[in-house]
């Protein structure tokens, strides 16, 4: 099997060939409803073409009793897009886009372990789509911010409008971003990391 094409296409980083030691690896999670722009967000900032990984899940734990009877009815595959940023040769940041539906929570528990934090991506036309993600991150205590992906031709709202509509607490940053623009996505990541620092014990 030859993966040289993949490495060639995206430019091989020095740390990839130094197998004697690994860089520090860290991650940020981007959560949001379907079509909100998670993949665009990841792609705007990633040094590699975003990759897709799959996790297999059973749809609802309360349905476990039926597992034996109708296994193919409740098993499904969830795709996550992710990208990579080599910040330094010994420091690599992964950005994972994950579906925001409540039924994927079991997967988030696994995904968010050790994460810097999460960006909850919202679309003002479908604000309710990010409620489950907000509920989840409020519950886990993982640092999170809200980024509104401003789609062209949609009414423009301020961060404060969205904060009020979503009942986001005052200490949580709410940003208006353009997920297609690298600088805008970097700004969203910076805001999250800075926010995560304020939640650290001094």
């Amino acid at each position, binding site marked *: 099997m030859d993966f040289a094409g993949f490495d060639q296409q995206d430019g091989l980083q020095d740390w990839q060939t130094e*197998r004697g030691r690994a860089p520090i690896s860290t991650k940020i999670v981007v959560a949001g409803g379907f079509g909100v722009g998670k993949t665009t967000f990841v792609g705007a900032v990633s040094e590699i073409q975003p990759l897709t990984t799959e996790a297999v899940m059973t749809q609802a734990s309360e349905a476990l009793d039926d597992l034996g009877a109708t296994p193919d009815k409740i098993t499904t595959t969830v795709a996550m897009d992710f990208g990579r940023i080599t910040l330094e040769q010994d420091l690599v940041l992964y950005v994972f886009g994950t579906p925001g539906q409540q039924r994927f929570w079991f997967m988030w528990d696994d995904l968010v372990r050790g994460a810097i934090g999460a960006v909850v991506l919202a679309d003002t036309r479908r604000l309710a789509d990010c409620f489950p993600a907000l509920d989840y991150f409020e519950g886990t205590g993982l640092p999170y911010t809200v980024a509104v992906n401003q789609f062209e031709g949609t009414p423009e709202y301020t961060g404060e409008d969205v904060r009020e509509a979503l009942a986001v607490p005052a200490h949580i940053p709410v940003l208006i971003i353009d997920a297609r623009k690298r600088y805008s996505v970097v700004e969203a990541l910076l805001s999250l990391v800075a926010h995560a620092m304020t939640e650290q014990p001094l």
Partner: protein
Amino acid sequence: MVPSPRGADRRTSRVRPYTLTGGRTQFGHVLLVETFVATVDGPAEQLALTAGDWAERVMPEFRAIVELCRRMRSVAEISALLRMPLGVVRVLISDLADQGRIRVYGTGHGPGGPDRALLERVLSGLRRL
């Protein structure tokens, strides 16, 4: 999170890896999606690969992971590039690590998440982009 192979996916290429993981969900190594792993170079490996001994005995999935990890890879990258579900990849990597063929490097920070010093480094790294 490795489900039962029964009807999990109708595509045959997907069924096999589930079968060979035997439904195990426990693994000794901490394998987060961003955890780095790489193939271990050694006399054993070279002998095995050139002689075709180990390579002939094991599943193609094991061989594919060992090949891919001649470069440093994260667990998620392996899953994506080999088109194998995360849960399956974790079990296979865990087995390869037990056999000494793959080294699990970890994330380089504690299990509780990044500390302040690491966050500061990430912040300055992002500012340089």
